[in-house]
């Protein structure tokens, strides 16, 4: 079972969890990363540290993260540089990022591990609006991939990014409590899950998050699962309807809370369909 929703602790990660966390500096991040990797190795997972420096720099960073005598080896804790995936200072290519993660995950399985566990401080990759848009899309693709493959990820953002973090936090299945009022996550059957509260206060964040969601190439339709929606007002429903209008495949919702369904009927939405879970 994946961790979905606000969490109080970063501990207890499963094989497919995707979590966002925020740190002040490396001193704050290192012990969490060490514990995260140690726990993964004990569970038979390969770990991978992902960063935006060159590989040697990253390897030195990792060496400083752990005590002498730990079980970390170059074989069990891999180094992945974003420089292998994208050019420094440019937006990431979301598809290439996921291809890299998928390849590493497959390699870990081939090498006898139960899966791959990655962590990265991605703050340097989200400095400009273009970088932010690209990275948010890669976060959603990672969310979708980890929901179906043995890839667990702890994505770290520096506190100094401020409100910018929210647009990435909402694209994770698990986030620290209080960081974002809503989340968008991947269901294991391919649907897009919505969780939390959606109102005018979060409308611009929700609109931006929706722009980062694209149907997979083989999706005949895109379904939003609303079983974890605590509240949704008409502003958010109109956002979903606008998204459905622009989406290249039909968009429908399922498990819509009764009050939200009534409001949707009052709105007479033209583009957003509805499916019953038993119809899937």
């Amino acid at each position, binding site marked *: 079972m994946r961790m979905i929703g606000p969490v109080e602790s970063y501990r207890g990660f499963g094989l497919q969890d995707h979590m966002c966390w925020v740190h002040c500096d490396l001193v704050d991040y290192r012990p969490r990363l060490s514990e995260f990797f140690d726990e993964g190795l004990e569970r038979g997972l390969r770990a991978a540290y992902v960063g935006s420096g060159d590989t040697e720099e990253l390897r030195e960073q990792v060496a400083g993260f752990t005590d002498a005598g730990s079980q970390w080896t170059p074989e069990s804790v891999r180094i992945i540089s974003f420089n292998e995936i994208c050019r420094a200072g440019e937006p990431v290519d979301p598809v290439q990022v996921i291809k890299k993660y998928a390849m590493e995950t497959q390699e870990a399985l081939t090498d006898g591990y139960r899966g791959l566990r990655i962590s990265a401080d991605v703050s340097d990759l989200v400095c400009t609006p273009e970088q932010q848009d690209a990275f948010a899309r890669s976060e959603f693709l990672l969310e979708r991939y980890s929901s179906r493959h043995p890839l667990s990820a702890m994505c770290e953002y520096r506190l100094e990014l401020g409100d910018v973090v929210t647009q990435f936090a909402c694209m994770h299945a698990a986030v620290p409590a209080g960081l974002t009022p809503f989340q968008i996550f991947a269901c294991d059957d391919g649907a897009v899950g919505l969780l939390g509260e959606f109102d005018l206060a979060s409308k611009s964040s929700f609109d931006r998050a929706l722009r980062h969601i694209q149907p997979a190439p083989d999706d005949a339709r895109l379904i939003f699962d609303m079983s974890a929606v605590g*509240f949704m007002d008409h502003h958010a429903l109109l956002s979903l309807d606008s998204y459905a209008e622009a989406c290249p495949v039909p968009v429908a919702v399922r498990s819509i809370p*009764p009050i939200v369904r009534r409001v949707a009927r009052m709105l007479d939405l033209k583009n957003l369909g509805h499916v019953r879970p038993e119809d899937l």
Partner: protein
Amino acid sequence: MRTGAARSQAGHYHEAGFYSSDKEFRALIVPFAEEGVAAGEPVIIGYDDRKNALLRSWLSDPLAVTFLGDKSLYARPARAIATYRRLFEFHVGMGAGQIRIAGDVPHPGNGGTFAGWDRYEAAVNAVWEEFPVWGLCLYDTSTAPAAVLDVVERTHPRIVSPSGQRRASGRYQDIWHFEGLPFAPDPLEETTPTLELLDKPPAAARHAVARIGHGVVGDAILDDLLMGVSEAVTNAALYGHPPTTVRIWATADSIVISVHDRGCGPADPLVGLVPGPGGVMPNPGFGLWLTHQLDVDVALNRADDGFTVRLRAGRTAE
């Protein structure tokens, strides 16, 4: 082509009739329905079971008349306006030259509450203007309170008597000049609120209502209250003047919520009853229109100190 008294009229022909016996009721409603059927016009009737049964027994061809059995039709004024609008759109689309409707809005004389329906009776003079509708509103003078009958005279441009005589209402006020019933405070509002929030976001108001309302009203009604308070606080922040004050009163079986800001409130007299200017979404009236269709009592109060949206549910609102 329109027939009867509304012949050559445009838009909604809104007429009231007063009766004090079944005989007078029959004299008013039967010609209205029979002539409509004879002219091939849709005739839609929305009375209670007793009056519907009476009318069926009086009509020569009751099957030619549509009797609305849905008791929720007159549950909320905004819902009734929207439901009728959909019916009108359907019949006009089918080529109807005129649509005749008659029904009974709730008031103390028929076991209901008239609050809000005064605005409905005034609003329908304006909101159905694009449809060839003849609306006949019949009120029983032996049971309807004087305050209700007073509103009826001021909201219907025309009056018909059981003898068939027709006249213009000399007291008619159009929607822009209509003086509605005064706001009636709930007794709970005179007491210290269970909770008061000052300038808090909609989420904080929802969480407070959820906490206080749990167990006081059913889950479905509580959901409606959460939607209503969220829309009201959002509107206050968008269109009102600070501070926005949310007050919640609760007893074992009732809950009252007021959302007050220092602004003068929406100027549109139709606010809450129709989706808003041009039906364009979102707009200042849209949230209030949605709120007015929920299964909770909604009242608006414009006062010297600002504008208040009040929501009530449970025993108090019944």
